[in-house]
């Protein structure tokens, strides 16, 4: 299946600052694709180039079969966007906002049905400035979706939100996907990427340093799995012969066995076979966070 978005060798410079050096990724139909990276990594510039809002210095971009540098307005009708820190006039009412923005990008469903879909029907006459944080977020999402886009770009949706509002925003994003819309999510929160993204690209210093599902990234960029337990047995070298085990470390009565994902069951069985039954066996896997920090450098974290 052809990707919905294909980006290859994207580069963009602002004066002396090389905001994007080499970004390539593909987004498939119906997935939530994440661009994860620290602030200033070039994520926003990349998606703004993909949307045709900025002109890249180099690289090839294809979105829904269109080139955003030459067909920005045709593309605009088929995509939706929530840009970083965007807002509406304080006194603009919910109904007016939806009517106005659907007039900018006609072709979507009637705006009243969009208003109902996002639970704002009782708020038609309420001014944007009087809405709660959650209602504002829903209105902004609704505004981004008034033209019934095939792809929607969401940039830093949850920055500055409290935990409850973040959680309901995550539900909104999953709901967008469940309606068949492809979602490109820009975020610097690992928990958000891990929870929402089907696949993601980790961006650091203007480059994509890794791409894959969260599980693939963990598998490819971590030491794998460590099995730990307490034992009085001092000679554990027999464990090193087991499949998928790389190294055994013993310090006092603490043992740590490093290996691949299938190491834990083999270790468990071998120990039981020898009559060693520790009551505190633990399995440690690297989290996406460990992998992320390794990929982008610890000091570059958000």
């Amino acid at each position, binding site marked *: 299946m052809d990707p919905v978005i294909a980006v290859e060798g994207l580069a963009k410079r602002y004066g002396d600052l090389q905001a994007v050096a080499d970004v390539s990724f593909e987004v498939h139909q119906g997935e939530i694709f994440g661009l994860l990276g620290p602030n200033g990594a070039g994520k926003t510039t990349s998606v703004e180039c993909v949307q045709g809002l900025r002109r890249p210095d180099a690289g090839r971009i294809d979105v829904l079969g269109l080139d955003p540098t030459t067909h920005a307005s045709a593309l605009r009708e088929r995509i939706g966007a929530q840009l970083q820190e965007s807002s509406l006039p304080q006194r603009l009412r919910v109904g007016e906002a939806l009517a106005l923005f659907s007039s900018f990008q006609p072709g979507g469903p009637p705006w009243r049905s969009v208003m109902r879909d996002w639970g704002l029907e009782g708020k038609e006459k309420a001014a944007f400035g009087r809405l709660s944080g959650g209602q504002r977020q829903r209105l902004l999402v609704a505004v*981004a979706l008034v033209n019934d886009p095939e792809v929607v770009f969401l940039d830093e949706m949850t920055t500055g939100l409290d935990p409850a509002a973040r959680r309901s925003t995550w539900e909104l994003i999953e709901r967008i996907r469940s309606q068949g819309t492809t979602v490109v999510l820009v975020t610097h929160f690992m928990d958000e990427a891990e929870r929402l993204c089907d696949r993601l690209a980790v961006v650091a210093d203007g480059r994509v340093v890794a791409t894959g599902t969260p599980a693939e990234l963990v598998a490819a960029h971590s030491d794998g799995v460590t099995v730990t337990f307490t034992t009085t047995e001092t000679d554990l070298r027999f464990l090193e012969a087991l499949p998928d085990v790389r190294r055994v470390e013993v310090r006092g009565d603490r043992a740590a066995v490093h290996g691949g994902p299938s190491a834990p069951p083999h270790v468990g069985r071998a120990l039981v076979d020898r009559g060693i039954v520790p009551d505190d066996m633990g399995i440690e896997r690297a989290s996406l966070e460990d992998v992320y920090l390794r990929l982008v450098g610890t000091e570059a974290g958000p």
Partner: protein
Amino acid sequence: MTRVRALSLTELRLFLREPVTVLFTLALPLMVLYVLNGVFGQDQGGDPGEIIVYRGFPAPDWYTPAYVAMALAGFCLIALPAHLVEYHETGVLRRLQASGVPRGAVLGSQAVIALVVATVGSGLLVAAAIAFTGTNAPENLLLFLVAYLVAAAAVIAIGLLLGVLLPTARAAQSVGILAWFVTLFVGGAGPPPEVLPDGLRTVGDWWPLTPVVQTLQEPWLTGEWATRASLVTAAVACGSLAVAWRAYRWD
């Protein structure tokens, strides 16, 4: 064009929802008329040999077209830039950009609303001046209306320029108020230029709103067209708009 229309109507609605701004915009020209006319508008009976001020025209006739410039400046240099900068600061422009609204529609809708509001204010002012201060109607009404459009274009373009260049709404407000007062003091709407000290008169000669005042005064007072002043005014309009267009930023 439909976007300019939709945005302008929305802007008008939002404007009418701000009672303080509405009151300020409509009451300011009338206050200016009342106060300044009381201070400067007394006809100079004058002994022969005194400085001739107002080029010999009755003071209210001299001032009314100048106050029209002040009414334009009141909305276009104070309210408009602060509003545009606020849209920039709060991310409203980014939201519009994401929906594919071109910069021309943003600037265009601000220009339309400024023209509508300032024209209502100017109309009230002219009506009040003729009704209450004994101002004579313009010598050439048609030429005055054309002059008004040229003047409005320049003041609106300066307002858009300030709205694009200034970093914060607070800065925009301060600069706008300052520009308004400078126009008042040295541009011809306050003390007659003939009584200004040389230094201030030089400032007045170079101040971009002085020719706007002159463009409005000439058809009102003499029925003639102020060729030189109107050309400068048109140049100010085009120059400001060109720079505003180029310097425009969404984020």
